[in-house]
Protein backbone atom coordinates (compact mmCIF):
# COMPACT_ATOMS: atom_id res chain seq x y z
CA UNK A 1 0.00 0.00 0.00
CA UNK A 2 2.80 2.34 0.96
CA UNK A 3 4.51 1.45 -2.27
CA UNK A 4 1.47 2.42 -4.28
CA UNK A 5 1.15 5.66 -2.33
CA UNK A 6 4.79 6.46 -2.98
CA UNK A 7 4.49 5.76 -6.67
CA UNK A 8 1.35 7.87 -6.92
CA UNK A 9 2.94 10.67 -4.94
CA UNK A 10 5.93 10.72 -7.27
CA UNK A 11 3.67 10.58 -10.32
CA UNK A 12 1.69 13.54 -9.01
CA UNK A 13 4.89 15.57 -8.91
CA UNK A 14 5.92 14.44 -12.36
CA UNK A 15 3.51 16.77 -14.17
CA UNK A 16 4.37 20.02 -12.34
CA UNK A 17 8.10 19.25 -12.54
CA UNK A 18 7.84 18.70 -16.26
CA UNK A 19 5.73 21.85 -16.64
CA UNK A 20 8.32 23.80 -14.68
CA UNK A 21 11.01 22.45 -16.97
CA UNK A 22 8.98 23.65 -19.95
CA UNK A 23 8.73 27.14 -18.43
CA UNK A 24 12.50 27.24 -17.91
CA UNK A 25 13.34 26.09 -21.44
CA UNK A 26 10.70 28.34 -22.94
CA UNK A 27 12.00 31.39 -21.11
CA UNK A 28 15.58 30.55 -22.10
CA UNK A 29 14.68 30.12 -25.73
CA UNK A 30 12.65 33.32 -26.02
CA UNK A 31 14.87 35.76 -24.13
CA UNK A 32 17.42 35.43 -26.86
CA UNK A 33 19.18 38.41 -28.33
CA UNK A 34 19.23 36.93 -31.83
CA UNK A 35 16.13 36.66 -34.01
CA UNK A 36 15.58 32.99 -34.85
CA UNK A 37 13.12 33.81 -37.61
CA UNK A 38 15.61 36.04 -39.44
CA UNK A 39 18.10 33.19 -39.14
CA UNK A 40 15.75 30.73 -40.77
CA UNK A 41 14.69 33.15 -43.47
CA UNK A 42 18.31 33.57 -44.49
CA UNK A 43 20.37 36.65 -45.26
CA UNK A 44 18.73 37.36 -48.59
CA UNK A 45 15.18 37.58 -47.21
CA UNK A 46 13.43 40.95 -47.30
CA UNK A 47 11.92 42.34 -44.08
CA UNK A 48 8.46 41.58 -45.48
CA UNK A 49 9.42 37.96 -46.06
CA UNK A 50 10.78 37.70 -42.52
CA UNK A 51 7.53 39.07 -41.13
CA UNK A 52 5.49 36.69 -43.22
CA UNK A 53 7.56 33.77 -41.96
CA UNK A 54 7.23 35.04 -38.40
CA UNK A 55 3.47 35.05 -38.78
CA UNK A 56 3.51 31.64 -40.39
CA UNK A 57 5.56 30.20 -37.50
CA UNK A 58 3.35 31.95 -34.94
CA UNK A 59 6.21 33.91 -33.43
CA UNK A 60 4.29 37.20 -33.61
CA UNK A 61 1.81 36.21 -30.92
CA UNK A 62 2.15 37.18 -27.23
CA UNK A 63 4.58 34.94 -25.31
CA UNK A 64 2.03 33.45 -22.89
CA UNK A 65 -0.15 32.45 -25.85
CA UNK A 66 2.85 30.84 -27.54
CA UNK A 67 3.66 28.97 -24.34
CA UNK A 68 0.14 27.61 -23.83
CA UNK A 69 0.07 26.62 -27.46
CA UNK A 70 3.45 24.89 -27.07
CA UNK A 71 2.33 22.90 -24.04
CA UNK A 72 -0.97 21.95 -25.69
CA UNK A 73 0.84 20.71 -28.78
CA UNK A 74 3.39 18.90 -26.67
CA UNK A 75 0.60 17.05 -24.91
CA UNK A 76 -0.37 15.70 -28.32
CA UNK A 77 3.21 14.64 -28.99
CA UNK A 78 3.96 17.56 -31.28
CA UNK A 79 7.22 19.36 -30.52
CA UNK A 80 7.03 21.69 -33.45
CA UNK A 81 9.23 21.85 -36.49
CA UNK A 82 12.97 22.24 -36.44
CA UNK A 83 13.85 25.73 -37.67
CA UNK A 84 16.76 24.21 -39.53
CA UNK A 85 15.85 20.80 -40.93
CA UNK A 86 12.20 21.83 -41.33
CA UNK A 87 11.16 18.40 -40.08
CA UNK A 88 9.10 17.60 -36.97
CA UNK A 89 11.44 17.59 -33.97
CA UNK A 90 9.80 14.48 -32.58
CA UNK A 91 10.79 12.64 -35.76
CA UNK A 92 14.34 14.01 -35.65
CA UNK A 93 14.77 12.96 -32.03
CA UNK A 94 13.08 9.58 -32.45
CA UNK A 95 15.28 8.90 -35.45
CA UNK A 96 18.41 9.61 -33.43
CA UNK A 97 17.37 8.16 -30.11
CA UNK A 98 18.42 4.53 -30.83
CA UNK A 99 22.01 5.64 -31.43
CA UNK A 100 22.09 7.37 -28.05
CA UNK A 101 20.38 4.51 -26.25
CA UNK A 102 22.76 2.00 -27.81
CA UNK A 103 25.77 4.03 -26.71
CA UNK A 104 24.39 4.70 -23.24
CA UNK A 105 23.32 1.11 -22.60
CA UNK A 106 26.67 -0.29 -23.70
CA UNK A 107 28.43 2.25 -21.48
CA UNK A 108 26.12 1.38 -18.59
CA UNK A 109 26.78 -2.36 -19.11
CA UNK A 110 30.52 -1.82 -19.22
CA UNK A 111 30.49 0.25 -16.05
CA UNK A 112 28.27 -2.23 -14.18
CA UNK A 113 30.08 -5.37 -15.35
CA UNK A 114 33.50 -3.92 -14.65
CA UNK A 115 32.71 -1.53 -11.83
CA UNK A 116 30.90 -3.82 -9.40
CA UNK A 117 33.50 -6.64 -9.39
CA UNK A 118 36.29 -4.08 -9.08
CA UNK A 119 34.49 -2.47 -6.15
CA UNK A 120 34.12 -5.82 -4.40
CA UNK A 121 37.75 -6.75 -5.02
CA UNK A 122 38.82 -3.34 -3.78
CA UNK A 123 36.87 -3.82 -0.55
CA UNK A 124 38.10 -7.38 0.02
CA UNK A 125 41.74 -6.45 -0.34
CA UNK A 126 41.34 -3.17 1.43
CA UNK A 127 44.49 -1.01 1.53
CA UNK A 128 46.33 -3.39 -0.76
CA UNK A 129 48.27 -2.18 -3.75
CA UNK A 130 45.29 -3.07 -5.92
CA UNK A 131 42.94 -1.05 -3.73
CA UNK A 132 45.21 1.97 -3.97
CA UNK A 133 45.48 1.59 -7.73
CA UNK A 134 41.70 1.42 -8.02
CA UNK A 135 41.42 4.47 -5.77
CA UNK A 136 43.57 6.43 -8.22
CA UNK A 137 41.34 5.18 -11.02
CA UNK A 138 38.11 6.27 -9.31
CA UNK A 139 39.49 9.67 -8.39
CA UNK A 140 40.62 10.12 -12.00
CA UNK A 141 37.26 9.07 -13.37
CA UNK A 142 35.55 11.97 -11.69
CA UNK A 143 38.21 14.54 -12.52
CA UNK A 144 38.83 13.89 -16.20
CA UNK A 145 37.08 15.99 -18.83
CA UNK A 146 35.08 13.56 -20.96
CA UNK A 147 35.74 15.37 -24.22
CA UNK A 148 39.49 15.36 -23.56
CA UNK A 149 39.52 11.65 -22.67
CA UNK A 150 37.70 10.97 -25.93
CA UNK A 151 40.21 12.99 -27.95
CA UNK A 152 43.15 11.27 -26.25
CA UNK A 153 41.65 7.85 -26.97
CA UNK A 154 41.14 8.88 -30.61
CA UNK A 155 44.72 10.09 -30.75
CA UNK A 156 46.11 6.83 -29.40
CA UNK A 157 43.83 4.10 -30.76
CA UNK A 158 42.55 5.62 -33.99
CA UNK A 159 45.29 7.92 -35.23
CA UNK A 160 48.44 6.30 -33.89
CA UNK A 161 47.61 2.59 -33.61
CA UNK A 162 44.81 2.47 -36.16
CA UNK A 163 42.87 -0.10 -34.14
CA UNK A 164 39.54 1.71 -34.08
CA UNK A 165 37.69 4.03 -36.45
CA UNK A 166 37.98 7.72 -35.68
CA UNK A 167 34.30 8.52 -35.41
CA UNK A 168 30.79 7.79 -36.62
CA UNK A 169 28.61 4.75 -36.14
CA UNK A 170 29.25 2.71 -39.30
CA UNK A 171 31.19 3.45 -42.49
CA UNK A 172 28.72 2.02 -45.03
CA UNK A 173 25.04 1.27 -45.04
CA UNK A 174 23.39 0.44 -41.72
CA UNK A 175 21.95 -3.05 -41.25
CA UNK A 176 18.30 -3.63 -42.11
CA UNK A 177 16.29 -1.34 -39.86
CA UNK A 178 14.47 -3.57 -37.38
CA UNK A 179 15.06 -1.87 -34.05
CA UNK A 180 17.38 0.99 -34.92
CA UNK A 181 20.08 -0.53 -32.69
CA UNK A 182 22.85 -1.54 -35.06
CA UNK A 183 24.22 -4.29 -32.82
CA UNK A 184 20.82 -5.95 -32.45
CA UNK A 185 19.83 -5.44 -36.09
CA UNK A 186 23.12 -6.87 -37.32
CA UNK A 187 22.82 -9.86 -34.99
CA UNK A 188 19.23 -10.53 -36.04
CA UNK A 189 20.10 -10.45 -39.72
CA UNK A 190 23.13 -12.67 -39.06
CA UNK A 191 25.40 -9.95 -40.46
CA UNK A 192 28.48 -10.45 -38.30
CA UNK A 193 30.71 -8.23 -40.41
CA UNK A 194 28.49 -5.27 -39.70
CA UNK A 195 28.18 -6.36 -36.08
CA UNK A 196 31.94 -6.28 -35.66
CA UNK A 197 32.22 -2.92 -37.38
CA UNK A 198 29.48 -1.47 -35.20
CA UNK A 199 31.23 -2.81 -32.12
CA UNK A 200 34.50 -1.27 -33.26
CA UNK A 201 32.84 2.08 -33.74
CA UNK A 202 31.25 1.81 -30.31
CA UNK A 203 34.41 0.93 -28.41
CA UNK A 204 35.94 4.38 -27.89
CA UNK A 205 32.80 6.46 -27.26
CA UNK A 206 31.45 3.79 -24.91
CA UNK A 207 34.73 3.65 -23.00
CA UNK A 208 34.81 7.45 -22.76
CA UNK A 209 31.25 7.59 -21.53
CA UNK A 210 31.61 4.65 -19.14
CA UNK A 211 34.70 5.91 -17.32
CA UNK A 212 33.12 8.38 -14.84
CA UNK A 213 30.13 6.09 -14.25
CA UNK A 214 32.48 3.18 -13.65
CA UNK A 215 34.49 5.22 -11.17
CA UNK A 216 31.33 6.10 -9.26
CA UNK A 217 30.22 2.48 -9.18
CA UNK A 218 33.56 1.17 -7.92
CA UNK A 219 33.39 3.71 -5.13
CA UNK A 220 29.86 2.91 -4.05
CA UNK A 221 30.29 -0.84 -4.28
CA UNK A 222 33.50 -0.72 -2.26
CA UNK A 223 31.86 1.36 0.46
CA UNK A 224 28.73 -0.79 0.47
CA UNK A 225 30.64 -4.06 0.74
CA UNK A 226 32.84 -2.70 3.52
CA UNK A 227 29.75 -1.60 5.45
CA UNK A 228 28.03 -4.94 5.09
CA UNK A 229 31.16 -6.98 5.86
CA UNK A 230 31.20 -5.37 9.29
CA UNK A 231 27.54 -6.07 9.94
CA UNK A 232 26.39 -8.67 12.45
CA UNK A 233 24.99 -11.08 9.92
CA UNK A 234 28.23 -11.26 7.98
CA UNK A 235 30.11 -11.78 11.21
CA UNK A 236 27.71 -14.55 12.17
CA UNK A 237 28.08 -16.28 8.84
CA UNK A 238 31.81 -16.16 9.18
CA UNK A 239 31.58 -17.55 12.70
CA UNK A 240 29.41 -20.38 11.37
CA UNK A 241 32.24 -21.29 9.05
CA UNK A 242 30.59 -20.49 5.75
CA UNK A 243 33.15 -20.29 2.95
CA UNK A 244 34.25 -16.75 2.34
CA UNK A 245 33.40 -16.64 -1.40
CA UNK A 246 29.85 -17.71 -0.58
CA UNK A 247 29.47 -15.03 2.06
CA UNK A 248 30.90 -12.33 -0.16
CA UNK A 249 29.41 -13.05 -3.56
CA UNK A 250 26.03 -14.23 -2.37
CA UNK A 251 25.01 -12.61 0.89
CA UNK A 252 27.16 -9.54 1.29
CA UNK A 253 26.90 -8.45 -2.31
CA UNK A 254 23.13 -8.74 -2.39
CA UNK A 255 22.88 -6.58 0.67
CA UNK A 256 25.48 -4.09 -0.52
CA UNK A 257 23.87 -3.72 -3.92
CA UNK A 258 20.59 -2.38 -2.57
CA UNK A 259 22.28 0.95 -2.01
CA UNK A 260 23.92 0.72 -5.40
CA UNK A 261 20.50 0.46 -7.05
CA UNK A 262 19.68 3.99 -5.88
CA UNK A 263 22.79 5.15 -7.61
CA UNK A 264 21.58 4.00 -11.00
CA UNK A 265 19.51 7.15 -11.28
CA UNK A 266 22.61 9.17 -10.50
CA UNK A 267 24.61 7.08 -12.93
CA UNK A 268 22.09 7.71 -15.62
CA UNK A 269 22.45 11.45 -15.06
CA UNK A 270 26.21 11.16 -15.48
CA UNK A 271 25.77 9.15 -18.68
CA UNK A 272 23.14 11.44 -20.17
CA UNK A 273 25.19 14.56 -19.50
CA UNK A 274 28.32 12.83 -20.75
CA UNK A 275 26.56 11.65 -23.90
CA UNK A 276 26.07 15.22 -25.13
CA UNK A 277 29.78 16.01 -25.20
CA UNK A 278 30.97 12.48 -26.02
CA UNK A 279 28.69 12.28 -29.03
CA UNK A 280 29.97 15.64 -30.22
CA UNK A 281 33.59 14.41 -30.02
CA UNK A 282 32.91 11.14 -31.86
CA UNK A 283 30.38 12.54 -34.32
CA UNK A 284 27.98 9.92 -32.98
CA UNK A 285 24.62 10.47 -34.71
CA UNK A 286 22.53 10.55 -31.52
CA UNK A 287 20.43 13.15 -29.76
CA UNK A 288 23.51 14.64 -28.05
CA UNK A 289 25.09 15.61 -31.37
CA UNK A 290 21.67 16.81 -32.52
CA UNK A 291 21.42 19.03 -29.44
CA UNK A 292 24.89 20.48 -29.89
CA UNK A 293 24.30 21.13 -33.60
CA UNK A 294 20.92 22.70 -32.88
CA UNK A 295 22.51 24.96 -30.31
CA UNK A 296 25.23 26.05 -32.69
CA UNK A 297 22.60 26.72 -35.40
CA UNK A 298 20.34 28.64 -32.99
CA UNK A 299 17.60 26.10 -33.65
CA UNK A 300 15.64 26.97 -30.52
CA UNK A 301 12.71 24.65 -31.14
CA UNK A 302 15.05 21.71 -31.40
CA UNK A 303 17.00 22.75 -28.29
CA UNK A 304 13.76 22.96 -26.34
CA UNK A 305 12.69 19.61 -27.69
CA UNK A 306 15.94 18.00 -26.64
CA UNK A 307 15.87 19.53 -23.16
CA UNK A 308 12.32 18.38 -22.61
CA UNK A 309 13.14 14.85 -23.78
CA UNK A 310 16.28 14.63 -21.70
CA UNK A 311 14.48 16.03 -18.67
CA UNK A 312 11.48 13.75 -19.08
CA UNK A 313 13.66 10.65 -19.49
CA UNK A 314 15.69 11.63 -16.46
CA UNK A 315 12.62 12.25 -14.29
CA UNK A 316 11.04 8.94 -15.33
CA UNK A 317 14.24 7.00 -14.61
CA UNK A 318 14.49 8.53 -11.17
CA UNK A 319 10.85 7.70 -10.50
CA UNK A 320 11.46 4.07 -11.48
CA UNK A 321 14.61 3.93 -9.37
CA UNK A 322 12.71 5.22 -6.34
CA UNK A 323 10.07 2.57 -6.74
CA UNK A 324 12.63 -0.15 -7.45
CA UNK A 325 14.57 0.79 -4.38
CA UNK A 326 11.46 0.44 -2.25
CA UNK A 327 10.84 -2.96 -3.77
CA UNK A 328 14.38 -4.19 -3.20
CA UNK A 329 14.90 -2.82 0.28
CA UNK A 330 12.23 -3.77 2.82
CA UNK A 331 13.60 -1.21 5.28
CA UNK A 332 12.46 1.54 2.94
CA UNK A 333 8.93 0.24 3.07
CA UNK A 334 8.85 0.21 6.85
CA UNK A 335 10.20 3.72 7.34
Amino acid sequence: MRLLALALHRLLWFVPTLLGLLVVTFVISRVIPADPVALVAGETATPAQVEALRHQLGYDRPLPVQFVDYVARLARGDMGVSLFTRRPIVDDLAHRLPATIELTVVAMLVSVLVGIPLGVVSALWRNSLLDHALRVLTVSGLAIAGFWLGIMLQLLFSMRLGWTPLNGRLPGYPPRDLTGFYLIDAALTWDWGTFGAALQHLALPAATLAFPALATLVRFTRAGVLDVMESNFALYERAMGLPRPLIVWKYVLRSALTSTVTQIGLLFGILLAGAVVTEAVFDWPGIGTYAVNSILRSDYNAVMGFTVWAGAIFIVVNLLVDVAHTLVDPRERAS
Partner: protein
Amino acid sequence: MIQNVSAAWFVVTRLARDRSALIGLVLIALLVLAAVLAPVLATHPDDVFELHPSERLKEPSGAHWLGTDRMGADVYSRLLFGARITILIGVIAVGASLALGVPIGLVAGYHHGWASDLLMRVSDIFLAVPQVVLAIAIAQTLGPSLPNVILALSVTYWPWFARVVYAETRALQKEVFVESTTALGASPWRLTVLHVLPNIASPIIVRASIGMGFTILTAAALGFLGLGPPPPTPEWGRTIAESREFLPDAWWYAAAPGVAIFLTVMGFNLLGDGLRDVLDPRLRRSAARDG
Protein backbone atom coordinates in the same frame (compact mmCIF):
# COMPACT_ATOMS: atom_id res chain seq x y z
CA MET B 1 37.03 34.24 17.72
CA ILE B 2 39.61 32.11 19.52
CA GLN B 3 37.22 29.23 19.16
CA ASN B 4 37.06 29.78 15.40
CA VAL B 5 40.82 29.94 15.04
CA SER B 6 41.37 26.74 16.97
CA ALA B 7 38.60 25.02 15.04
CA ALA B 8 40.20 26.08 11.77
CA TRP B 9 43.60 24.90 13.05
CA PHE B 10 42.06 21.54 13.96
CA VAL B 11 40.70 21.16 10.45
CA VAL B 12 44.00 22.13 8.82
CA THR B 13 46.10 19.74 10.93
CA ARG B 14 43.67 16.90 10.33
CA LEU B 15 43.66 17.60 6.60
CA ALA B 16 47.45 17.60 6.52
CA ARG B 17 47.44 14.10 8.00
CA ASP B 18 45.07 12.80 5.30
CA ARG B 19 47.28 11.95 2.37
CA SER B 20 44.78 12.52 -0.44
CA ALA B 21 43.48 15.75 1.08
CA LEU B 22 47.06 16.94 1.28
CA ILE B 23 47.59 16.15 -2.39
CA GLY B 24 44.41 18.10 -3.11
CA LEU B 25 45.63 21.08 -1.13
CA VAL B 26 48.98 21.02 -2.91
CA LEU B 27 47.32 20.85 -6.34
CA ILE B 28 45.06 23.80 -5.53
CA ALA B 29 48.00 25.76 -4.13
CA LEU B 30 49.90 25.13 -7.37
CA LEU B 31 46.93 26.30 -9.40
CA VAL B 32 46.62 29.50 -7.40
CA LEU B 33 50.34 30.05 -7.64
CA ALA B 34 50.26 29.54 -11.41
CA ALA B 35 47.41 32.03 -11.75
CA VAL B 36 48.86 34.71 -9.49
CA LEU B 37 52.42 34.45 -10.76
CA ALA B 38 51.52 33.80 -14.40
CA PRO B 39 53.44 36.84 -15.74
CA VAL B 40 56.53 35.81 -13.74
CA LEU B 41 56.42 32.06 -14.34
CA ALA B 42 55.58 32.30 -18.03
CA THR B 43 58.53 31.90 -20.37
CA HIS B 44 56.72 33.85 -23.09
CA PRO B 45 54.24 36.08 -21.22
CA ASP B 46 53.34 38.10 -24.33
CA ASP B 47 52.25 35.03 -26.27
CA VAL B 48 48.68 35.30 -25.02
CA PHE B 49 48.12 37.99 -27.64
CA GLU B 50 51.12 37.88 -29.94
CA LEU B 51 51.45 35.81 -33.10
CA HIS B 52 54.64 34.10 -34.23
CA PRO B 53 53.78 32.38 -37.51
CA SER B 54 57.32 31.08 -37.93
CA GLU B 55 57.10 29.26 -34.58
CA ARG B 56 53.89 27.39 -35.42
CA LEU B 57 53.29 23.94 -33.92
CA LYS B 58 56.81 23.39 -32.61
CA GLU B 59 57.47 20.33 -30.47
CA PRO B 60 58.23 20.72 -26.76
CA SER B 61 61.82 21.88 -26.36
CA GLY B 62 64.05 23.94 -24.10
CA ALA B 63 62.64 27.16 -25.53
CA HIS B 64 59.00 25.99 -25.45
CA TRP B 65 58.54 23.53 -22.59
CA LEU B 66 55.12 22.38 -23.77
CA GLY B 67 55.56 23.25 -27.44
CA THR B 68 53.72 25.94 -29.41
CA ASP B 69 50.19 26.22 -30.81
CA ARG B 70 48.72 27.10 -34.21
CA MET B 71 49.56 30.78 -33.69
CA GLY B 72 53.12 30.00 -32.69
CA ALA B 73 52.34 30.90 -29.07
CA ASP B 74 53.93 29.11 -26.13
CA VAL B 75 51.50 26.49 -24.82
CA TYR B 76 52.96 26.52 -21.29
CA SER B 77 52.64 30.31 -20.95
CA ARG B 78 49.06 30.29 -22.21
CA LEU B 79 48.20 27.51 -19.76
CA LEU B 80 49.36 29.66 -16.86
CA PHE B 81 47.16 32.55 -17.95
CA GLY B 82 44.33 30.10 -18.52
CA ALA B 83 44.53 29.17 -14.83
CA ARG B 84 43.32 32.70 -14.06
CA ILE B 85 40.18 32.20 -16.12
CA THR B 86 39.57 28.81 -14.54
CA ILE B 87 39.82 30.19 -11.01
CA LEU B 88 37.71 33.21 -11.91
CA ILE B 89 34.93 31.04 -13.33
CA GLY B 90 35.02 28.58 -10.44
CA VAL B 91 35.11 31.13 -7.64
CA ILE B 92 32.45 33.46 -9.00
CA ALA B 93 30.09 30.71 -10.16
CA VAL B 94 30.32 28.77 -6.90
CA GLY B 95 30.15 32.02 -4.90
CA ALA B 96 27.02 33.12 -6.73
CA SER B 97 25.48 29.66 -6.32
CA LEU B 98 26.20 29.86 -2.59
CA ALA B 99 24.72 33.36 -2.35
CA LEU B 100 21.57 32.15 -4.06
CA GLY B 101 21.25 28.58 -2.85
CA VAL B 102 22.05 28.95 0.85
CA PRO B 103 19.39 31.60 1.67
CA ILE B 104 16.80 29.74 -0.40
CA GLY B 105 17.62 26.49 1.37
CA LEU B 106 17.52 28.16 4.78
CA VAL B 107 14.18 29.87 4.19
CA ALA B 108 12.60 26.78 2.66
CA GLY B 109 13.99 24.61 5.43
CA TYR B 110 12.87 26.88 8.24
CA HIS B 111 9.34 27.64 7.04
CA HIS B 112 6.84 24.92 6.46
CA GLY B 113 4.30 25.77 3.82
CA TRP B 114 3.50 26.00 0.14
CA ALA B 115 6.14 28.67 -0.48
CA SER B 116 8.86 26.33 0.79
CA ASP B 117 7.51 23.50 -1.32
CA LEU B 118 7.48 25.78 -4.33
CA LEU B 119 11.09 26.86 -3.78
CA MET B 120 12.24 23.26 -3.52
CA ARG B 121 10.19 22.29 -6.57
CA VAL B 122 11.89 25.01 -8.56
CA SER B 123 15.28 23.71 -7.50
CA ASP B 124 14.15 20.18 -8.39
CA ILE B 125 13.35 21.33 -11.90
CA PHE B 126 16.91 22.50 -12.34
CA LEU B 127 18.21 19.24 -10.90
CA ALA B 128 15.90 17.30 -13.21
CA VAL B 129 18.13 18.01 -16.20
CA PRO B 130 21.88 17.36 -16.29
CA GLN B 131 23.64 20.64 -15.54
CA VAL B 132 25.63 20.73 -18.73
CA VAL B 133 22.44 20.55 -20.84
CA LEU B 134 20.84 23.60 -19.25
CA ALA B 135 24.16 25.44 -19.05
CA ILE B 136 24.71 24.89 -22.79
CA ALA B 137 21.23 26.22 -23.56
CA ILE B 138 21.72 29.32 -21.40
CA ALA B 139 25.27 30.05 -22.54
CA GLN B 140 24.26 29.72 -26.17
CA THR B 141 21.23 31.94 -25.71
CA LEU B 142 23.26 34.71 -24.10
CA GLY B 143 26.20 34.43 -26.48
CA PRO B 144 29.75 33.20 -25.88
CA SER B 145 31.54 35.31 -23.28
CA LEU B 146 33.14 34.91 -19.87
CA PRO B 147 30.34 36.59 -17.85
CA ASN B 148 27.73 34.51 -19.67
CA VAL B 149 29.54 31.25 -18.89
CA ILE B 150 29.68 32.24 -15.23
CA LEU B 151 26.01 33.19 -15.28
CA ALA B 152 25.00 29.91 -16.95
CA LEU B 153 26.96 27.90 -14.37
CA SER B 154 25.59 29.87 -11.42
CA VAL B 155 21.99 29.60 -12.58
CA THR B 156 22.34 25.83 -12.92
CA TYR B 157 24.43 25.06 -9.82
CA TRP B 158 22.63 26.88 -6.97
CA PRO B 159 19.98 24.13 -6.54
CA TRP B 160 22.69 21.79 -5.21
CA PHE B 161 23.35 24.18 -2.34
CA ALA B 162 19.64 24.81 -1.79
CA ARG B 163 19.08 21.04 -1.55
CA VAL B 164 21.89 20.47 0.94
CA VAL B 165 20.97 23.44 3.12
CA TYR B 166 17.28 22.58 3.03
CA ALA B 167 17.83 18.98 4.12
CA GLU B 168 20.27 19.94 6.88
CA THR B 169 18.01 22.72 8.18
CA ARG B 170 15.04 20.41 8.31
CA ALA B 171 17.12 17.81 10.17
CA LEU B 172 18.31 20.41 12.69
CA GLN B 173 14.80 21.50 13.55
CA LYS B 174 14.39 18.36 15.58
CA GLU B 175 17.42 19.27 17.70
CA VAL B 176 16.88 20.44 21.27
CA PHE B 177 19.05 23.52 20.92
CA VAL B 178 16.95 24.88 18.07
CA GLU B 179 13.79 24.28 20.05
CA SER B 180 15.19 25.94 23.16
CA THR B 181 16.51 28.92 21.21
CA THR B 182 13.05 29.34 19.71
CA ALA B 183 11.52 29.06 23.18
CA LEU B 184 13.88 31.78 24.41
CA GLY B 185 12.24 34.07 21.89
CA ALA B 186 14.90 34.26 19.19
CA SER B 187 13.63 35.72 15.95
CA PRO B 188 13.59 33.43 12.90
CA TRP B 189 16.37 35.53 11.39
CA ARG B 190 18.54 35.23 14.49
CA LEU B 191 17.85 31.53 14.80
CA THR B 192 18.69 30.64 11.21
CA VAL B 193 21.67 32.90 10.67
CA LEU B 194 23.34 32.69 14.09
CA HIS B 195 22.39 29.19 15.19
CA VAL B 196 21.39 27.02 12.25
CA LEU B 197 23.85 28.27 9.65
CA PRO B 198 27.05 27.67 11.69
CA ASN B 199 25.87 24.15 12.41
CA ILE B 200 25.39 23.28 8.77
CA ALA B 201 28.60 24.94 7.58
CA SER B 202 30.43 21.62 7.13
CA PRO B 203 28.26 20.13 4.39
CA ILE B 204 28.16 23.51 2.66
CA ILE B 205 31.96 23.74 2.63
CA VAL B 206 32.29 20.18 1.36
CA ARG B 207 29.75 20.84 -1.36
CA ALA B 208 31.53 24.07 -2.32
CA SER B 209 34.85 22.27 -2.80
CA ILE B 210 33.31 19.54 -4.91
CA GLY B 211 31.27 22.20 -6.71
CA MET B 212 34.46 24.00 -7.70
CA GLY B 213 35.73 20.88 -9.43
CA PHE B 214 32.43 20.17 -11.07
CA THR B 215 31.93 23.77 -12.22
CA ILE B 216 35.42 23.94 -13.70
CA LEU B 217 34.76 20.69 -15.58
CA THR B 218 31.47 21.99 -16.99
CA ALA B 219 33.07 25.33 -17.89
CA ALA B 220 35.76 23.46 -19.83
CA ALA B 221 33.04 21.53 -21.69
CA LEU B 222 31.30 24.80 -22.58
CA GLY B 223 34.61 26.22 -23.77
CA PHE B 224 35.21 23.11 -25.84
CA LEU B 225 31.81 23.52 -27.52
CA GLY B 226 32.71 27.11 -28.41
CA LEU B 227 30.46 28.66 -25.78
CA GLY B 228 33.25 30.02 -23.59
CA PRO B 229 35.14 33.31 -23.75
CA PRO B 230 36.11 34.06 -27.38
CA PRO B 231 39.71 33.87 -28.64
CA PRO B 232 42.43 34.85 -27.99
CA THR B 233 41.44 34.06 -24.40
CA PRO B 234 43.63 31.12 -23.31
CA GLU B 235 40.68 29.19 -21.89
CA TRP B 236 41.63 25.50 -21.50
CA GLY B 237 38.52 23.91 -23.02
CA ARG B 238 38.67 26.08 -26.13
CA THR B 239 42.39 25.38 -26.52
CA ILE B 240 41.61 21.66 -26.69
CA ALA B 241 38.96 22.29 -29.34
CA GLU B 242 41.42 24.39 -31.39
CA SER B 243 44.08 21.69 -31.18
CA ARG B 244 41.93 18.97 -32.73
CA GLU B 245 42.65 19.78 -36.36
CA PHE B 246 46.39 19.48 -35.72
CA LEU B 247 46.21 15.93 -34.38
CA PRO B 248 47.87 13.49 -34.32
CA ASP B 249 51.04 15.51 -34.97
CA ALA B 250 50.73 18.30 -32.39
CA TRP B 251 49.78 15.98 -29.51
CA TRP B 252 51.21 18.34 -26.86
CA TYR B 253 48.81 21.06 -27.94
CA ALA B 254 45.81 18.87 -27.03
CA ALA B 255 47.34 17.00 -24.11
CA ALA B 256 48.63 19.88 -21.97
CA PRO B 257 45.35 21.74 -21.26
CA GLY B 258 43.56 18.46 -20.55
CA VAL B 259 46.14 17.52 -17.94
CA ALA B 260 45.75 20.98 -16.40
CA ILE B 261 41.96 20.55 -16.17
CA PHE B 262 42.42 17.06 -14.74
CA LEU B 263 44.85 18.12 -12.00
CA THR B 264 42.71 21.12 -11.05
CA VAL B 265 39.46 19.19 -10.76
CA MET B 266 41.21 16.36 -8.94
CA GLY B 267 42.62 18.86 -6.45
CA PHE B 268 39.17 20.15 -5.52
CA ASN B 269 37.66 16.66 -5.42
CA LEU B 270 40.38 15.32 -3.15
CA LEU B 271 40.09 18.34 -0.88
CA GLY B 272 36.31 17.91 -0.77
CA ASP B 273 36.68 14.25 0.20
CA GLY B 274 39.23 15.13 2.86
CA LEU B 275 37.05 17.91 4.26
CA ARG B 276 34.13 15.52 4.44
CA ASP B 277 36.19 13.05 6.46
CA VAL B 278 37.45 15.72 8.83
CA LEU B 279 34.35 17.86 9.23
CA ASP B 280 31.73 15.16 9.33
CA PRO B 281 32.74 11.93 11.04
CA ARG B 282 29.28 10.49 10.40
CA LEU B 283 29.94 10.38 6.69
CA ARG B 284 32.83 8.40 5.39
CA ARG B 285 34.76 8.81 2.20
CA SER B 286 32.33 6.25 0.86
CA ALA B 287 29.57 8.77 0.31
CA ALA B 288 30.35 9.49 -3.29
CA ARG B 289 30.26 12.65 -5.20
CA ASP B 290 26.96 13.27 -6.86
CA GLY B 291 27.21 16.47 -8.71
